[in-house]
């Protein structure tokens, strides 16, 4: 090939020279033993260190406080839902993992203060990338994220979380909706945080 194309074969004089000078057997003299001793010293020293392993299923280390885990649909202090079914979370979602259907509140069945509430709320956790854009998009802080991360399951259906799986539990002072707004309160007073929990 080199004759045809007139290319000189690759040559590096420095490498050839070095190869000729060095002996075939690596002989570093007494330093070999010392370097080995030094290496074993690292191993020996590690035996006295505290193990780094987290014993996971028994010991669960808390995540970072703002870790992006499973979502939660929050409630007002009296138990009404914060979600108004505006679908901004679904619009913000880069993976199209959220499905929302809004519905109008009526005087007989009120789920949230104001006009609308989220009737259907689904998050497909197989699509969700936990980016938190839905949290940023939510105008009422209805949607936030928890630190819960143990979500694995054995079928696709089980990983589509419905509204009842995502809603926050009923805490002290809350009443399960549907129920009317606090007496004298309107939508605005709920958002300004003027409505407190129900005294029982």
């Amino acid at each position, binding site marked *: 090939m080199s004759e045809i194309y007139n290319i000189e074969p690759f040559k590096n004089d420095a490498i050839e020279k070095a190869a000729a000078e060095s002996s075939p057997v690596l002989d570093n003299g007494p330093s070999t033993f010392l370097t080995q001793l030094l290496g074993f010293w690292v191993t020996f020293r590690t035996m006295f260190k505290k193990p780094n392993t987290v014993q996971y299923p028994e010991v669960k280390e808390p995540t970072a406080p703002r870790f992006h885990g499973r979502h939660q649909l929050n409630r007002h202090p009296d138990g009404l839902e914060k979600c108004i079914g505006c679908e901004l979370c679904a619009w913000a979602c880069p993976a199209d993992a959220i499905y929302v259907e809004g519905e109008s509140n009526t005087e007989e069945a009120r789920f949230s203060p104001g006009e609308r509430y989220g009737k259907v709320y*689904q998050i497909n956790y197989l699509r969700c990338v936990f980016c938190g854009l839905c949290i940023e998009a939510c105008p009422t802080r209805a949607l936030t994220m928890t630190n819960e991360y143990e979500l694995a*399951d054995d079928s*696709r259906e089980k990983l589509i979380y419905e509204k009842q799986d995502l809603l926050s539990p009923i805490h002290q002072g809350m009443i399960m909706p549907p129920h009317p707004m606090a007496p004298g309160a309107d939508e605005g007073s709920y958002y300004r945080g003027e409505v407190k929990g129900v005294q029982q």
Partner: protein
Amino acid sequence: MGLIVGLEEKLPSGFVLTSVEKLAGYMRKNSLWPATFGLACCAIEMMAAGAGRYDLARFGMEVFRASPRQADLMIVAGRVSNKMAPVLRQIYDQMAAPKWVIAMGACASSGGMFNNYAIVQGVDHVVPVDIYLPGCPPRPEMLMDAILKLHEHIGDAKLGVNREKVIREVEAAALAAVPTHSLPVFGSSA
């Protein structure tokens, strides 16, 4: 993993087979060897799960086998492109039964945010998946949680005639299931 090679297939249903099932399940779940199938960023978390801090060796699965012949768990970690799908299937076919699959991360489970022509929309289009693990990428604890859930499945696995019975029941349930196009609309009762 044939515990008593072929014998469990011939045992009649009863306490002997149940004891063999329990023993086989215990041994199988505590000696899972994963095949390396890291495809994207999830593989980094999978490696972290194998390293000292999370230490998969505690569950008897420290060796990630490069040969599918020696592996019985495939952790599909990352997005599977259409071009990779036949390779994935071949690796799965080369694994010796019994074998299990974990779809790790959003991409392997459903395609995740890559809803496009290049990515397989979930590896269950190619191989049967036992555990779906959401997350992008899931942290090592999540992977270990998925593995522990798979351990429960493996521990309860049936053998021989009991297995055939379970398969028949699943088949009958699938035939009797309502097709998706005639399912009731979600949330209509709410």
